[in-house]
């Protein structure tokens, strides 16, 4: 594999280059910063911050740069900007209404408009997450403990659905490693399984036996400990909407979206590789790894391209999908020497 000289995020493709309108906006913002005498090298952030800061009128530049703000319907979830390599893609954010209105959460229905319509029945308090298995200090965390376990960070990740569409989401959370380290995995621990809520009283979708409930997902321990592997508690600066997996969900940005299990109730450290729900349902189509890979197609459709929700116009050709969803510089070494066609 070539050594990337690019710092952090890799930008190999012309279509990934910041659109003209955005960089012009950035310049205008830098000019306005210069006017208030705070022309610090915030250039990269200017495009996104411009709107938020414009709303804050002409107050002097804030000590910490403003974070993404949502529509204000849900409780705020304060965060700091993540310092992790790859935590911020430069792509335009997908609108909140699309992030919260178009997604898969089979426990609330099979259509992508169903979760937003049906997930109001999900009760996110009280909520506990038991972390168990191959660890020295198994423990059941209350959601309040987890919210305080590590500082909340904002991270802007791409999300690539296995169905061929993608989004750019500003998540709030912290690396899953914070939780795993708290329970001290033993030397036997090689894999991590994430078990999600399955309650018929709250989730109408459980009446259909489309998947073997509860929905389960798994990662190799080194994948789970990778700093980019996020436990998200919020998005757009607010707590997660129910339909997006409240009160806490996994986000693994270099894997297809279904790997990022929602509404997690149990985390198990395991010696042997667990089987994830989609792997059990259709083993020929869904593998354990499910890394975003434009060269390995889903049997029913190509994975070479994707449609960015809310951005790529109806009549625009789909954009190329990037290896590891563009996170190759950060995670490529996890799979060094592996045949990714075999371990799909």
């Amino acid at each position, binding site marked *: 594999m070539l050594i990337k000289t690019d710092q952090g995020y890799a930008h190999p493709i012309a279509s990934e280059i910041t659109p003209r309108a955005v960089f012009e906006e950035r310049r205008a913002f830098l000019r306005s910063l210069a006017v208030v005498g705070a022309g610090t090298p915030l250039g990269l952030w200017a495009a996104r911050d411009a709107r938020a800061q414009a709303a804050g009128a002409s107050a002097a530049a804030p000590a910490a740069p403003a974070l993404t703000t949502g529509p204000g319907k849900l409780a705020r979830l304060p965060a700091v900007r993540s310092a992790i390599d790859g935590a911020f893609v430069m792509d335009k954010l997908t609108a909140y209404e*699309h992030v919260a209105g178009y997604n*898969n959460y089979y426990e609330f229905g*099979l259509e992508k408009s169903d979760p937003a319509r049906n997930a109001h029945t999900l009760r996110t308090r009280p909520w506990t997450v038991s972390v168990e298995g191959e660890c020295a200090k198994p423990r059941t965390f209350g959601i309040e403990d987890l919210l305080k376990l590590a500082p909340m960070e904002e991270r802007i990740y791409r999300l690539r659905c296995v*169905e061929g569409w993608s989004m750019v989401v500003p998540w709030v959370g912290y690396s899953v490693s914070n939780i795993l380290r708290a329970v001290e995995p033993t030397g036997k621990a090689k894999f991590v399984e994430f078990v999600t809520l399955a309650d018929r009283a709250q989730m109408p979708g459980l009446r259909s036996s489309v998947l073997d409930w509860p929905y389960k997902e798994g990662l190799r321990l080194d994948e789970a400990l990778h700093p980019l592997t996020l436990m998200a508690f919020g998005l757009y600066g607010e707590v997660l909407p129910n339909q997006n997996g409240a009160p806490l969900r996994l986000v693994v940005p270099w894997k297809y979206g279904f790997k990022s299990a929602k509404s997690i109730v149990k985390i198990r450290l395991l010696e042997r590789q667990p089987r994830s729900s989609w792997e059990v349902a*259709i083993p020929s189509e869904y593998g354990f790894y499910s890394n975003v890979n434009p060269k390995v197609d889903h049997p*029913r459709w190509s994975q070479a391209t994707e449609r960015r929700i809310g951005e790529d116009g109806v*009549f625009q050709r*789909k954009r190329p999908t990037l290896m590891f969803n563009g996170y190759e510089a950060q995670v490529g070494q996890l799979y060094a020497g592996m045949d990714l066609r075999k371990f799909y």
Partner: protein
Amino acid sequence: MKARLGAVLMHPLCKPVVALVLLLPLVALVWGALNDTLGANPAETLIRNSGEMALRCLLLTLAVTPLREWTGVAAFARLRRLLGLLTFSWAMLHLLTYSWLDMGFYLDDIVRDTVKRPFILVGMLALLLMLPLALTSFNAAVKALGSSRWKRLHQAVYAVALLAILHFFWMRAGKLNFGDVAVYAALLAALLGWRVRRLLGRGTH
């Protein structure tokens, strides 16, 4: 009642109204595409809806004969050609939206996609089978082919229907989302079942 139904079906406006009703979704889709009101994934909405409309028109086409026999109103047969052509039109729109929005009109990609994915191949086969039916849908074609040969040719519609349902089923199989498929499959089974029963009934008499 029977006479009233017959009169409605024989009315000169009957066919234009049926055509208008079944093409109205097209107006809505085009308007929505131009005004960006087709939701988060407008391309998917266009491809899905055109395919589903084709399937609906196909089921309506196959319902003509059972309706005619069941009600005893022969005038239902007047609608069959129109419904068949509407099925073909929606199927062509389905092909157009797929080729354009999913494949960007890259012929290489379309060919590769077709040979690689059984559900696309089956959909293409259904389209291909519909082509001779649409091309021989005018009166002179019936005369030229002879009535019995024309009828035999147009029995290909049953194959089209089975391929279309299989196409829909295989597409949804990727995410195990079979609710809609089951509804259409049940309707098709009823329509084809009625024909099978009639055929068997004739045999025993």
